[in-house]
């Protein structure tokens, strides 16, 4: 899969968040998106995942056949898409049926993330870090070429961070793409870096007109 973004601009509630973003990714590439709080990292991921309309610019995918961009990606972010009253296994099984392209079974995926024992526990009983790992297990139950990760290491302990780095590396070896918004080093070797702050166009000063 190839992804190219050109001259992308985002506006939320009338306020310019960023403009003129451009990057291109090919198989095995990774992109670390950095920037201060509120720079628009999550907005960029929301545009890519089809939840937000860009103000200007183009997002194009190639080498994915008929599928549209939202159908080629996984999103793991602050809002993890897990239902507290369902067990980890039920949540993952639902994601697998909903998204299609099954890869690992929910139990195997949870075991890969060291959470095999949580398969039959309601997600509401899990800690923040365990919950995040269940959300990350979704990356393994369905095969999708692009991973969009928003602060993926939040709430994760060091061992799990290393685990995640390993998963991302394996995904890239298989030709997958990773775009991660982050403040921390993720262990993405050879990843391109996109600092959103740098591309913000200066806002014109508001005119003071009291006359």
């Amino acid at each position, binding site marked *: 899969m190839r992804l190219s973004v050109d001259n992308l601009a985002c506006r*939320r*509630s009338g306020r310019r968040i960023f403009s003129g973003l451009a990057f291109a990714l090919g198989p095995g590439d990774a992109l670390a998106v950095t920037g201060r709080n509120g720079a628009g990292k999550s907005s960029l991921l929301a545009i890519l*995942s*089809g*939840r*937000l*309309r860009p103000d200007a610019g183009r997002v194009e995918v190639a080498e994915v056949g008929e*599928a549209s961009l*939202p*159908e080629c*990606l*996984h*999103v793991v*972010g*602050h*809002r*993890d*898409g*897990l*239902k*507290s*009253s*369902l067990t980890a296994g*039920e949540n993952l099984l*639902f*994601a697998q*049926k*909903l*998204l*299609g392209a099954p890869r690992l079974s929910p139990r195997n995926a949870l075991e890969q993330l060291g959470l095999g024992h949580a398969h039959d526990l309601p997600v509401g009983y899990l800690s923040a870090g365990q919950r995040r790992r269940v959300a990350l297990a979704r990356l393994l139950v369905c095969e999708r070429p692009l991973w969009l990760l928003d602060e993926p290491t939040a709430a994760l302990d060091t061992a799990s961070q290393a685990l995640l780095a390993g998963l991302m590396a394996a995904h890239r070896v298989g030709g997958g793409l990773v775009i991660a918004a982050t403040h921390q080093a993720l262990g993405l070797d050879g990843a391109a870096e996109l600092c959103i702050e740098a591309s913000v166009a200066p806002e014109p000063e508001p005119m003071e007109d009291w006359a």
Partner: protein
Amino acid sequence: MTRAILALIARDLRLAGRVGGSGALSLVFFLMIVALVPFALGPDLNLLSRIGPAILWLAAVLSTLIGLDRLFQADEEDGSLDLMTAAPVPLEGVVLAKVTAHWLTTGLPLALASPLFGLLVALDGTAMGATALTLLAGTPALSFIGAVGAALTASIRRGGLILAVLVLPLMIPSLIFGVSAAQAATGGTVPFLVPLAVLAALTLIAAVVGTLAAAAALRWPE
């Protein structure tokens, strides 16, 4: 695509039965309203049986609102909606699945239980059957209309009241023809099938318009 829609329906039905789900709540609410009316009106059986279908329909409209505010809001808050956007199903399909699950947990149980609750308002056999049939044909429209309001208020905190104000006026046509069909069955000048056909038509229109409108409201929340 069918598998994804079935998975969504199955998940929503399962959630309704778990802690925090609305499950049988709307049925209990329905029972409450219907049980309160005889206390308010007194034991006048003729009056009760005359206005019985109207009471059952009003109660059905109000109980449809139970849990409706969380129909899309819960998924919007926890990010499940992002997951559904990424599914190989258009949002219209997602709306259709969620409304179906909502109807299976509210409208269908109400319609099936209405003959029993008809006893509380002194309905005779024909009126019970007719009311149940009109509820069966009419309640899907209530769910579809409600879904539009639920989608519009998905990102508003405490949007439940706004939702009720938005959708209740739109439910009036179904209410009118539902009650008139039920009353036509027990006498009157119009044959039963005429208002029932209009009611069914209203349901079909609501299914199309409601699905498209709710999906459009969810697609671009800003």
